[in-house]
Protein backbone atom coordinates (compact mmCIF):
# COMPACT_ATOMS: atom_id res chain seq x y z
CA UNK A 1 0.00 0.00 0.00
CA UNK A 2 1.53 3.27 -1.15
CA UNK A 3 0.37 5.56 1.59
CA UNK A 4 1.84 7.93 4.12
CA UNK A 5 0.11 6.26 7.01
CA UNK A 6 0.86 4.76 10.40
CA UNK A 7 -1.64 2.33 11.90
CA UNK A 8 -4.57 2.46 9.43
CA UNK A 9 -7.04 2.46 12.30
CA UNK A 10 -5.57 5.80 13.43
CA UNK A 11 -5.96 7.34 9.98
CA UNK A 12 -8.82 9.73 10.67
CA UNK A 13 -7.67 10.56 14.16
CA UNK A 14 -4.17 11.50 13.05
CA UNK A 15 -5.46 13.40 10.04
CA UNK A 16 -7.59 15.54 12.35
CA UNK A 17 -4.67 16.12 14.69
CA UNK A 18 -2.61 17.20 11.68
CA UNK A 19 -5.31 19.65 10.65
CA UNK A 20 -5.43 21.06 14.15
CA UNK A 21 -1.66 21.41 14.12
CA UNK A 22 -1.96 23.38 10.87
CA UNK A 23 -4.83 25.60 11.97
CA UNK A 24 -4.64 25.86 15.76
CA UNK A 25 -6.25 29.29 15.77
CA UNK A 26 -9.11 28.39 13.50
CA UNK A 27 -10.19 24.95 14.59
CA UNK A 28 -11.09 23.17 17.80
CA UNK A 29 -11.85 19.49 18.35
CA UNK A 30 -14.74 18.42 20.53
CA UNK A 31 -13.29 16.25 23.28
CA UNK A 32 -13.39 12.55 22.59
CA UNK A 33 -14.95 12.97 19.15
CA UNK A 34 -13.91 13.32 15.53
CA UNK A 35 -15.79 16.59 15.28
CA UNK A 36 -13.99 19.83 14.41
CA UNK A 37 -15.66 23.18 14.94
CA UNK A 38 -14.66 26.81 14.53
CA UNK A 39 -12.59 27.76 17.53
CA UNK A 40 -15.21 30.41 18.35
CA UNK A 41 -18.26 28.19 17.90
CA UNK A 42 -21.10 28.76 18.56
CA UNK A 43 -21.10 32.15 16.84
CA UNK A 44 -23.45 34.53 18.60
CA UNK A 45 -26.55 35.55 16.72
CA UNK A 46 -25.85 33.29 13.75
CA UNK A 47 -27.56 30.13 12.55
CA UNK A 48 -25.11 27.26 12.85
CA UNK A 49 -24.16 25.45 9.64
CA UNK A 50 -22.69 21.97 9.92
CA UNK A 51 -21.81 19.12 7.65
CA UNK A 52 -20.15 15.78 7.94
CA UNK A 53 -19.80 12.35 6.51
CA UNK A 54 -17.19 9.74 5.91
CA UNK A 55 -13.56 10.77 5.68
CA UNK A 56 -11.51 10.44 2.52
CA UNK A 57 -13.02 13.42 0.69
CA UNK A 58 -10.58 16.03 1.89
CA UNK A 59 -10.69 19.03 1.96
CA UNK A 60 -14.32 18.07 2.58
CA UNK A 61 -15.54 18.46 5.23
CA UNK A 62 -13.37 20.19 7.82
CA UNK A 63 -11.43 22.17 5.22
CA UNK A 64 -14.53 24.30 4.75
CA UNK A 65 -14.85 25.35 8.38
CA UNK A 66 -14.58 29.06 8.89
CA UNK A 67 -16.16 32.45 8.38
CA UNK A 68 -18.80 32.31 5.68
CA UNK A 69 -19.00 28.54 5.41
CA UNK A 70 -19.23 25.80 8.04
CA UNK A 71 -19.28 26.07 11.81
CA UNK A 72 -18.56 22.40 12.30
CA UNK A 73 -17.74 19.21 10.47
CA UNK A 74 -17.98 15.65 11.72
CA UNK A 75 -15.52 13.14 10.31
CA UNK A 76 -16.57 9.52 10.15
CA UNK A 77 -14.19 6.69 9.48
CA UNK A 78 -13.07 6.52 5.86
CA UNK A 79 -16.22 6.44 3.69
CA UNK A 80 -18.42 5.78 6.73
CA UNK A 81 -20.98 8.21 8.07
CA UNK A 82 -20.20 9.56 11.53
CA UNK A 83 -22.32 8.17 14.34
CA UNK A 84 -25.49 9.89 15.43
CA UNK A 85 -23.89 10.58 18.81
CA UNK A 86 -21.07 12.61 17.32
CA UNK A 87 -23.37 14.42 14.91
CA UNK A 88 -25.54 15.35 17.86
CA UNK A 89 -22.58 16.70 19.80
CA UNK A 90 -21.59 18.78 16.80
CA UNK A 91 -25.06 20.20 16.35
CA UNK A 92 -25.22 21.19 20.00
CA UNK A 93 -21.76 22.77 19.94
CA UNK A 94 -22.71 24.89 16.94
CA UNK A 95 -26.04 26.13 18.22
CA UNK A 96 -26.05 29.70 19.48
CA UNK A 97 -29.78 29.60 20.00
CA UNK A 98 -30.63 30.41 16.37
CA UNK A 99 -30.83 26.79 15.27
CA UNK A 100 -28.55 24.63 13.16
CA UNK A 101 -28.68 23.63 9.51
CA UNK A 102 -27.26 20.21 8.67
CA UNK A 103 -25.96 19.72 5.15
CA UNK A 104 -26.38 16.02 4.45
CA UNK A 105 -25.27 14.06 1.42
CA UNK A 106 -27.88 11.60 0.28
CA UNK A 107 -26.59 8.26 1.50
CA UNK A 108 -28.73 6.11 3.68
CA UNK A 109 -26.05 5.94 6.36
CA UNK A 110 -25.62 9.71 6.46
CA UNK A 111 -29.33 10.39 6.35
CA UNK A 112 -30.19 7.89 9.10
CA UNK A 113 -27.45 9.12 11.42
CA UNK A 114 -28.25 12.79 10.82
CA UNK A 115 -31.94 12.04 11.39
CA UNK A 116 -31.20 10.39 14.69
CA UNK A 117 -28.84 13.19 15.68
CA UNK A 118 -31.49 15.74 14.83
CA UNK A 119 -33.97 13.97 17.08
CA UNK A 120 -31.41 13.84 19.88
CA UNK A 121 -30.61 17.54 19.53
CA UNK A 122 -34.23 18.55 19.40
CA UNK A 123 -34.74 16.78 22.71
CA UNK A 124 -32.20 19.29 24.04
CA UNK A 125 -34.24 22.12 22.53
CA UNK A 126 -32.00 22.81 19.59
CA UNK A 127 -33.87 23.73 16.45
CA UNK A 128 -32.51 21.61 13.61
CA UNK A 129 -33.12 21.71 9.87
CA UNK A 130 -31.64 19.66 7.04
CA UNK A 131 -30.70 20.08 3.43
CA UNK A 132 -30.12 16.77 1.68
CA UNK A 133 -27.88 17.10 -1.36
CA UNK A 134 -28.37 14.65 -4.22
CA UNK A 135 -26.61 16.14 -7.21
CA UNK A 136 -25.21 13.03 -8.85
CA UNK A 137 -26.99 12.71 -12.19
CA UNK A 138 -25.42 9.34 -12.97
CA UNK A 139 -27.89 7.55 -10.77
CA UNK A 140 -31.55 7.59 -11.57
CA UNK A 141 -33.78 8.80 -8.82
CA UNK A 142 -36.30 5.99 -9.03
CA UNK A 143 -37.86 3.11 -7.22
CA UNK A 144 -34.78 1.14 -8.15
CA UNK A 145 -32.29 3.22 -6.25
CA UNK A 146 -32.02 4.84 -2.89
CA UNK A 147 -32.09 8.14 -4.77
CA UNK A 148 -29.22 10.13 -6.11
CA UNK A 149 -25.94 10.54 -4.31
CA UNK A 150 -24.65 13.76 -2.84
CA UNK A 151 -21.28 14.58 -4.38
CA UNK A 152 -19.32 17.68 -5.37
CA UNK A 153 -22.34 19.97 -5.62
CA UNK A 154 -22.34 19.84 -1.82
CA UNK A 155 -19.51 22.38 -1.82
CA UNK A 156 -21.73 24.96 -3.48
CA UNK A 157 -24.38 24.24 -0.87
CA UNK A 158 -21.81 24.77 1.90
CA UNK A 159 -20.77 28.04 0.34
CA UNK A 160 -24.27 29.38 -0.24
CA UNK A 161 -25.81 28.43 3.08
CA UNK A 162 -22.68 29.50 4.93
CA UNK A 163 -22.85 32.93 3.36
CA UNK A 164 -26.56 33.20 4.02
CA UNK A 165 -26.09 32.32 7.68
CA UNK A 166 -23.19 34.75 7.97
CA UNK A 167 -25.49 37.45 6.62
CA UNK A 168 -27.79 36.90 9.59
CA UNK A 169 -30.61 34.99 7.93
CA UNK A 170 -32.97 32.75 9.85
CA UNK A 171 -32.74 28.97 9.92
CA UNK A 172 -35.62 28.75 7.50
CA UNK A 173 -34.06 31.19 5.08
CA UNK A 174 -30.72 29.43 5.23
CA UNK A 175 -32.37 26.12 4.53
CA UNK A 176 -34.30 27.59 1.61
CA UNK A 177 -31.09 28.76 -0.02
CA UNK A 178 -29.60 25.31 0.38
CA UNK A 179 -32.60 23.82 -1.31
CA UNK A 180 -32.34 26.27 -4.13
CA UNK A 181 -28.82 25.11 -4.85
CA UNK A 182 -29.87 21.48 -4.64
CA UNK A 183 -32.59 22.07 -7.21
CA UNK A 184 -30.19 23.66 -9.64
CA UNK A 185 -27.05 21.61 -9.40
CA UNK A 186 -25.91 18.43 -11.11
CA UNK A 187 -22.67 16.46 -11.14
CA UNK A 188 -21.24 13.50 -13.00
CA UNK A 189 -17.92 11.79 -12.33
CA UNK A 190 -15.42 9.45 -13.91
CA UNK A 191 -12.68 7.29 -12.40
CA UNK A 192 -9.48 6.33 -14.20
CA UNK A 193 -8.35 4.26 -11.23
CA UNK A 194 -9.99 2.93 -8.12
CA UNK A 195 -8.98 4.34 -4.78
CA UNK A 196 -7.23 2.44 -2.03
CA UNK A 197 -8.69 2.72 1.46
CA UNK A 198 -6.12 2.58 4.25
CA UNK A 199 -7.93 -0.26 6.02
CA UNK A 200 -8.28 -2.48 2.97
CA UNK A 201 -4.95 -1.50 1.45
CA UNK A 202 -5.98 -2.60 -2.02
CA UNK A 203 -8.01 -1.05 -4.84
CA UNK A 204 -11.75 -1.20 -4.20
CA UNK A 205 -12.30 -2.26 -7.79
CA UNK A 206 -10.03 -3.41 -10.60
CA UNK A 207 -9.79 -1.35 -13.72
CA UNK A 208 -7.78 -2.34 -16.76
CA UNK A 209 -5.11 -0.09 -18.29
CA UNK A 210 -7.53 0.83 -21.09
CA UNK A 211 -10.72 1.20 -19.09
CA UNK A 212 -12.49 3.80 -17.05
CA UNK A 213 -15.59 3.91 -14.86
CA UNK A 214 -18.35 6.35 -15.62
CA UNK A 215 -20.91 7.55 -13.14
CA UNK A 216 -18.86 6.95 -10.03
CA UNK A 217 -19.62 8.35 -6.62
CA UNK A 218 -17.04 9.51 -4.12
CA UNK A 219 -16.64 6.35 -2.07
CA UNK A 220 -14.62 4.19 -4.40
CA UNK A 221 -17.77 2.35 -5.38
CA UNK A 222 -17.84 1.17 -8.97
CA UNK A 223 -19.68 3.47 -11.37
CA UNK A 224 -22.79 2.92 -13.41
CA UNK A 225 -20.86 1.85 -16.50
CA UNK A 226 -17.43 0.70 -17.54
CA UNK A 227 -16.11 2.06 -20.80
CA UNK A 228 -12.99 2.11 -22.90
CA UNK A 229 -10.43 4.74 -22.04
CA UNK A 230 -11.33 8.13 -23.53
CA UNK A 231 -9.49 11.32 -24.32
CA UNK A 232 -9.87 14.31 -22.00
CA UNK A 233 -12.19 15.95 -24.50
CA UNK A 234 -14.41 12.90 -24.74
CA UNK A 235 -14.58 12.64 -20.96
CA UNK A 236 -15.46 16.33 -20.68
CA UNK A 237 -18.15 15.94 -23.30
CA UNK A 238 -19.63 12.87 -21.74
CA UNK A 239 -19.86 14.38 -18.27
CA UNK A 240 -20.95 17.86 -19.29
CA UNK A 241 -23.64 16.76 -21.74
CA UNK A 242 -25.16 14.41 -19.22
CA UNK A 243 -25.32 17.09 -16.54
CA UNK A 244 -26.69 19.79 -18.83
CA UNK A 245 -29.36 17.48 -20.13
CA UNK A 246 -30.40 16.50 -16.65
CA UNK A 247 -30.62 20.11 -15.48
CA UNK A 248 -32.25 21.22 -18.69
CA UNK A 249 -29.94 24.18 -18.99
CA UNK A 250 -30.63 26.39 -21.94
CA UNK A 251 -28.83 28.95 -24.00
CA UNK A 252 -28.64 32.28 -22.21
CA UNK A 253 -28.64 30.86 -18.71
CA UNK A 254 -25.80 31.54 -16.28
CA UNK A 255 -23.97 28.82 -14.43
CA UNK A 256 -21.08 28.13 -12.14
CA UNK A 257 -19.00 25.07 -13.02
CA UNK A 258 -16.67 22.88 -11.03
CA UNK A 259 -14.08 20.58 -12.54
CA UNK A 260 -13.26 18.61 -9.45
CA UNK A 261 -10.30 16.28 -9.03
CA UNK A 262 -10.81 12.94 -7.29
CA UNK A 263 -7.49 13.20 -5.43
CA UNK A 264 -4.92 11.43 -7.60
CA UNK A 265 -5.29 13.48 -10.75
CA UNK A 266 -2.93 16.42 -11.20
CA UNK A 267 -4.28 19.94 -11.62
CA UNK A 268 -2.89 20.20 -15.13
CA UNK A 269 -5.33 17.53 -16.30
CA UNK A 270 -8.25 19.25 -14.59
CA UNK A 271 -7.45 22.40 -16.54
CA UNK A 272 -7.33 20.39 -19.77
CA UNK A 273 -10.82 19.14 -18.96
CA UNK A 274 -12.01 22.61 -17.95
CA UNK A 275 -10.91 23.94 -21.32
CA UNK A 276 -13.29 21.56 -23.06
CA UNK A 277 -16.12 22.04 -20.57
CA UNK A 278 -16.07 25.77 -21.21
CA UNK A 279 -15.87 25.22 -24.96
CA UNK A 280 -19.00 23.08 -24.80
CA UNK A 281 -20.91 25.61 -22.69
CA UNK A 282 -19.79 28.39 -24.98
CA UNK A 283 -20.99 26.45 -27.99
CA UNK A 284 -24.43 26.16 -26.41
CA UNK A 285 -24.63 29.81 -25.46
CA UNK A 286 -24.58 28.99 -21.77
CA UNK A 287 -22.72 31.62 -19.83
CA UNK A 288 -20.17 30.54 -17.25
CA UNK A 289 -20.34 33.11 -14.52
CA UNK A 290 -17.57 31.40 -12.54
CA UNK A 291 -15.43 28.30 -13.13
CA UNK A 292 -13.89 26.43 -10.24
CA UNK A 293 -11.07 23.98 -10.88
CA UNK A 294 -9.40 21.90 -8.20
CA UNK A 295 -9.74 19.18 -5.59
CA UNK A 296 -12.90 20.06 -3.68
CA UNK A 297 -14.49 16.67 -2.99
CA UNK A 298 -12.16 13.74 -3.41
CA UNK A 299 -12.01 9.96 -3.12
CA UNK A 300 -8.66 9.49 -1.42
CA UNK A 301 -6.09 8.78 -4.16
CA UNK A 302 -8.52 8.00 -6.97
CA UNK A 303 -7.60 9.33 -10.39
CA UNK A 304 -10.47 10.95 -12.18
CA UNK A 305 -12.69 13.98 -12.02
CA UNK A 306 -16.24 15.17 -11.88
CA UNK A 307 -18.01 18.00 -13.63
CA UNK A 308 -20.56 20.04 -11.71
CA UNK A 309 -22.87 22.62 -13.22
CA UNK A 310 -25.13 24.85 -11.16
CA UNK A 311 -27.62 27.36 -12.49
CA UNK A 312 -27.23 30.69 -10.67
CA UNK A 313 -29.41 33.72 -10.14
CA UNK A 314 -28.45 37.01 -8.52
CA UNK A 315 -29.00 35.71 -5.01
CA UNK A 316 -26.78 32.67 -5.55
CA UNK A 317 -24.12 34.76 -7.26
CA UNK A 318 -23.97 37.08 -4.29
CA UNK A 319 -23.75 34.20 -1.88
CA UNK A 320 -21.13 32.26 -3.84
CA UNK A 321 -19.09 35.42 -4.17
CA UNK A 322 -19.45 36.48 -0.53
CA UNK A 323 -16.43 36.50 1.77
CA UNK A 324 -15.30 33.16 3.08
CA UNK A 325 -12.21 32.38 5.08
CA UNK A 326 -11.58 28.68 5.48
CA UNK A 327 -8.47 26.53 5.07
CA UNK A 328 -9.61 25.22 1.69
CA UNK A 329 -11.62 28.10 0.27
CA UNK A 330 -11.19 31.82 0.54
CA UNK A 331 -13.22 34.49 -1.17
Amino acid at each position, binding site marked *: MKKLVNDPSDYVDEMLDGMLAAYPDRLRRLDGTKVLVRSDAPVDGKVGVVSGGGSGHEPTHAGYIGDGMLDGAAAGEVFTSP*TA*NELNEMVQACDAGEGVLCVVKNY*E*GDVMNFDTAGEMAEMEDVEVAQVVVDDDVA*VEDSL*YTSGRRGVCGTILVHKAVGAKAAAGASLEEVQAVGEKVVENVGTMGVALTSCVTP*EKGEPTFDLGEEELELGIGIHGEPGTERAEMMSADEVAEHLTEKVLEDLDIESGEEVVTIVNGMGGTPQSELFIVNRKVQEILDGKGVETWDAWVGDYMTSLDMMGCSVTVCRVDDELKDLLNADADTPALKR
Partner: protein
Amino acid sequence: MADESVQREALVAAVENVAARIESEKSHLTDLDSAIGDADHGNNMHRGFQAVAEKTDEFEGMDVDEIVKTIGTTIIGNVGGAAGPLYGGSIMTASQELEGGITAETSVAFAEAYLEKVKDRGDAPVGAKTMVDALTPAVHTYKKSVEHDDLPPLTALAKAVDAAERGVNFTVPLRASKGRASFLGWRSVGHQDPGATSTLFILEEILDTAGE
Protein backbone atom coordinates in the same frame (compact mmCIF):
# COMPACT_ATOMS: atom_id res chain seq x y z
CA MET B 1 -36.80 -20.12 32.07
CA ALA B 2 -33.23 -19.68 33.25
CA ASP B 3 -32.50 -17.07 35.89
CA GLU B 4 -31.09 -13.62 35.14
CA SER B 5 -27.44 -14.37 35.85
CA VAL B 6 -27.45 -17.35 33.51
CA GLN B 7 -29.01 -15.21 30.79
CA ARG B 8 -26.45 -12.49 31.44
CA GLU B 9 -23.64 -14.99 31.02
CA ALA B 10 -25.21 -16.31 27.85
CA LEU B 11 -25.42 -12.77 26.47
CA VAL B 12 -21.76 -12.15 27.27
CA ALA B 13 -20.84 -15.40 25.59
CA ALA B 14 -22.95 -14.51 22.55
CA VAL B 15 -21.36 -11.08 22.31
CA GLU B 16 -17.91 -12.60 22.50
CA ASN B 17 -18.69 -15.21 19.90
CA VAL B 18 -20.23 -12.70 17.53
CA ALA B 19 -17.29 -10.33 17.99
CA ALA B 20 -14.82 -13.14 17.28
CA ARG B 21 -16.76 -14.24 14.22
CA ILE B 22 -16.98 -10.72 12.84
CA GLU B 23 -13.28 -10.30 13.44
CA SER B 24 -12.50 -13.43 11.45
CA GLU B 25 -14.93 -12.42 8.69
CA LYS B 26 -13.85 -8.78 8.61
CA SER B 27 -12.04 -8.85 5.31
CA HIS B 28 -14.63 -11.18 3.81
CA LEU B 29 -17.38 -8.68 4.58
CA THR B 30 -15.27 -5.79 3.32
CA ASP B 31 -14.58 -7.65 0.10
CA LEU B 32 -18.29 -8.20 -0.45
CA ASP B 33 -18.79 -4.48 0.14
CA SER B 34 -15.97 -3.64 -2.30
CA ALA B 35 -17.82 -5.30 -5.12
CA ILE B 36 -21.05 -3.34 -4.79
CA GLY B 37 -20.41 -0.77 -2.06
CA ASP B 38 -17.61 1.19 -0.49
CA ALA B 39 -15.41 -1.47 1.08
CA ASP B 40 -16.09 -0.73 4.72
CA HIS B 41 -18.75 -3.11 6.00
CA GLY B 42 -16.23 -5.46 7.64
CA ASN B 43 -14.49 -2.59 9.38
CA ASN B 44 -17.76 -1.03 10.45
CA MET B 45 -19.07 -4.23 12.01
CA HIS B 46 -15.73 -5.01 13.55
CA ARG B 47 -15.44 -1.60 15.16
CA GLY B 48 -18.95 -1.96 16.57
CA PHE B 49 -18.62 -5.43 18.05
CA GLN B 50 -15.16 -4.73 19.43
CA ALA B 51 -16.70 -1.82 21.32
CA VAL B 52 -19.51 -4.03 22.54
CA ALA B 53 -17.12 -6.77 23.62
CA GLU B 54 -15.16 -4.23 25.62
CA LYS B 55 -18.32 -3.30 27.50
CA THR B 56 -19.18 -6.76 28.81
CA ASP B 57 -17.71 -5.92 32.24
CA GLU B 58 -20.42 -3.34 32.69
CA PHE B 59 -23.15 -5.92 32.12
CA GLU B 60 -22.70 -7.25 35.63
CA GLY B 61 -25.74 -6.21 37.61
CA MET B 62 -27.76 -5.01 34.61
CA ASP B 63 -31.09 -6.43 33.61
CA VAL B 64 -31.16 -8.36 30.36
CA ASP B 65 -33.10 -5.70 28.49
CA GLU B 66 -30.71 -3.05 29.72
CA ILE B 67 -27.78 -5.09 28.49
CA VAL B 68 -29.32 -5.48 25.06
CA LYS B 69 -30.11 -1.79 24.98
CA THR B 70 -26.49 -1.02 25.83
CA ILE B 71 -25.38 -3.26 23.00
CA GLY B 72 -27.58 -1.22 20.67
CA THR B 73 -26.41 2.18 21.85
CA THR B 74 -22.80 1.05 21.75
CA ILE B 75 -23.25 0.05 18.13
CA ILE B 76 -24.96 3.37 17.34
CA GLY B 77 -22.12 5.23 19.01
CA ASN B 78 -19.31 3.35 17.28
CA VAL B 79 -20.33 2.15 13.86
CA GLY B 80 -21.76 4.98 11.81
CA GLY B 81 -22.59 4.30 8.16
CA ALA B 82 -25.83 2.53 7.32
CA ALA B 83 -25.03 -0.44 9.51
CA GLY B 84 -24.80 1.65 12.70
CA PRO B 85 -28.37 2.92 12.87
CA LEU B 86 -29.82 -0.23 11.30
CA TYR B 87 -28.20 -2.71 13.66
CA GLY B 88 -27.76 -0.46 16.67
CA GLY B 89 -31.00 1.48 16.51
CA SER B 90 -33.06 -1.64 15.96
CA ILE B 91 -31.42 -3.55 18.79
CA MET B 92 -31.94 -0.57 21.05
CA THR B 93 -35.62 -0.22 20.23
CA ALA B 94 -36.36 -3.93 20.28
CA SER B 95 -34.64 -4.34 23.64
CA GLN B 96 -37.85 -3.10 25.30
CA GLU B 97 -39.45 -6.43 24.45
CA LEU B 98 -36.99 -8.22 26.72
CA GLU B 99 -38.11 -6.60 29.90
CA GLY B 100 -38.29 -9.37 32.45
CA GLY B 101 -35.83 -11.60 30.61
CA ILE B 102 -35.57 -13.80 27.56
CA THR B 103 -38.32 -16.34 27.05
CA ALA B 104 -39.57 -18.05 23.94
CA GLU B 105 -42.29 -15.45 23.86
CA THR B 106 -40.17 -12.34 24.40
CA SER B 107 -37.58 -13.57 21.94
CA VAL B 108 -40.21 -13.70 19.21
CA ALA B 109 -41.40 -10.24 20.16
CA PHE B 110 -37.81 -9.00 20.06
CA ALA B 111 -37.26 -10.50 16.63
CA GLU B 112 -40.41 -8.95 15.25
CA ALA B 113 -39.71 -5.57 16.75
CA TYR B 114 -36.17 -5.68 15.42
CA LEU B 115 -37.29 -6.47 11.88
CA GLU B 116 -39.97 -3.82 12.09
CA LYS B 117 -37.45 -1.18 13.11
CA VAL B 118 -34.97 -2.10 10.39
CA LYS B 119 -37.68 -1.78 7.77
CA ASP B 120 -38.89 1.41 9.32
CA ARG B 121 -35.46 3.06 9.41
CA GLY B 122 -34.18 1.79 6.10
CA ASP B 123 -37.42 1.70 4.17
CA ALA B 124 -36.26 -1.35 2.26
CA PRO B 125 -38.80 -3.93 1.10
CA VAL B 126 -37.89 -7.57 0.72
CA GLY B 127 -36.00 -8.02 -2.52
CA ALA B 128 -34.12 -4.72 -2.34
CA LYS B 129 -30.96 -6.75 -1.77
CA THR B 130 -30.30 -5.73 1.83
CA MET B 131 -30.08 -7.26 5.26
CA VAL B 132 -33.88 -7.31 5.21
CA ASP B 133 -33.70 -10.24 2.82
CA ALA B 134 -31.87 -12.36 5.39
CA LEU B 135 -33.81 -11.02 8.32
CA THR B 136 -37.34 -11.42 7.04
CA PRO B 137 -37.32 -15.19 6.39
CA ALA B 138 -35.40 -15.71 9.62
CA VAL B 139 -37.93 -13.86 11.73
CA HIS B 140 -40.90 -15.40 9.94
CA THR B 141 -39.52 -18.87 10.40
CA TYR B 142 -38.64 -18.30 14.03
CA LYS B 143 -42.10 -17.01 14.89
CA LYS B 144 -43.89 -19.81 13.06
CA SER B 145 -41.68 -22.47 14.61
CA VAL B 146 -42.20 -21.23 18.14
CA GLU B 147 -45.81 -20.12 18.00
CA HIS B 148 -47.41 -22.53 15.56
CA ASP B 149 -45.19 -25.59 15.60
CA ASP B 150 -44.39 -25.38 19.33
CA LEU B 151 -40.76 -26.16 18.65
CA PRO B 152 -38.21 -25.44 21.37
CA PRO B 153 -36.50 -22.07 20.84
CA LEU B 154 -33.17 -23.69 20.00
CA THR B 155 -34.69 -25.75 17.21
CA ALA B 156 -36.63 -22.74 15.99
CA LEU B 157 -33.44 -20.70 15.94
CA ALA B 158 -31.68 -23.37 13.91
CA LYS B 159 -34.47 -23.19 11.37
CA ALA B 160 -34.23 -19.40 11.37
CA VAL B 161 -30.52 -19.56 10.61
CA ASP B 162 -31.27 -21.85 7.73
CA ALA B 163 -33.85 -19.38 6.48
CA ALA B 164 -31.41 -16.49 6.78
CA GLU B 165 -28.92 -18.39 4.70
CA ARG B 166 -31.49 -18.79 1.94
CA GLY B 167 -32.08 -15.08 2.21
CA VAL B 168 -28.41 -14.38 1.75
CA ASN B 169 -28.31 -16.58 -1.33
CA PHE B 170 -31.44 -14.91 -2.58
CA THR B 171 -29.68 -11.52 -2.59
CA VAL B 172 -27.12 -12.70 -5.15
CA PRO B 173 -29.24 -12.69 -8.31
CA LEU B 174 -31.14 -9.53 -7.38
CA ARG B 175 -30.70 -5.98 -8.57
CA ALA B 176 -30.31 -3.74 -5.52
CA SER B 177 -32.84 -0.98 -5.04
CA LYS B 178 -31.65 0.21 -1.64
CA GLY B 179 -28.26 0.98 -0.15
CA ARG B 180 -25.10 1.89 -2.01
CA ALA B 181 -25.41 -1.13 -4.27
CA SER B 182 -28.47 0.50 -5.85
CA PHE B 183 -26.18 3.14 -7.39
CA LEU B 184 -24.72 0.41 -9.56
CA GLY B 185 -27.99 -0.41 -11.28
CA TRP B 186 -27.88 -3.73 -13.11
CA ARG B 187 -24.24 -4.20 -12.25
CA SER B 188 -25.24 -5.18 -8.71
CA VAL B 189 -26.78 -8.41 -10.00
CA GLY B 190 -24.61 -11.45 -9.21
CA HIS B 191 -23.15 -10.14 -5.97
CA GLN B 192 -24.01 -11.12 -2.41
CA ASP B 193 -25.19 -8.41 -0.07
CA PRO B 194 -22.74 -7.68 2.77
CA GLY B 195 -25.36 -6.67 5.34
CA ALA B 196 -27.42 -9.79 4.75
CA THR B 197 -24.25 -11.79 5.16
CA SER B 198 -23.29 -10.18 8.46
CA THR B 199 -26.84 -10.73 9.66
CA LEU B 200 -26.45 -14.44 8.93
CA PHE B 201 -23.09 -14.59 10.74
CA ILE B 202 -24.60 -13.02 13.83
CA LEU B 203 -27.52 -15.39 13.84
CA GLU B 204 -25.19 -18.35 13.43
CA GLU B 205 -23.17 -17.28 16.45
CA ILE B 206 -26.26 -16.73 18.55
CA LEU B 207 -27.39 -20.23 17.64
CA ASP B 208 -24.00 -21.67 18.51
CA THR B 209 -23.96 -19.89 21.85
CA ALA B 210 -27.48 -20.93 22.67
CA GLY B 211 -26.58 -24.51 21.87
CA GLU B 212 -23.81 -24.58 24.44
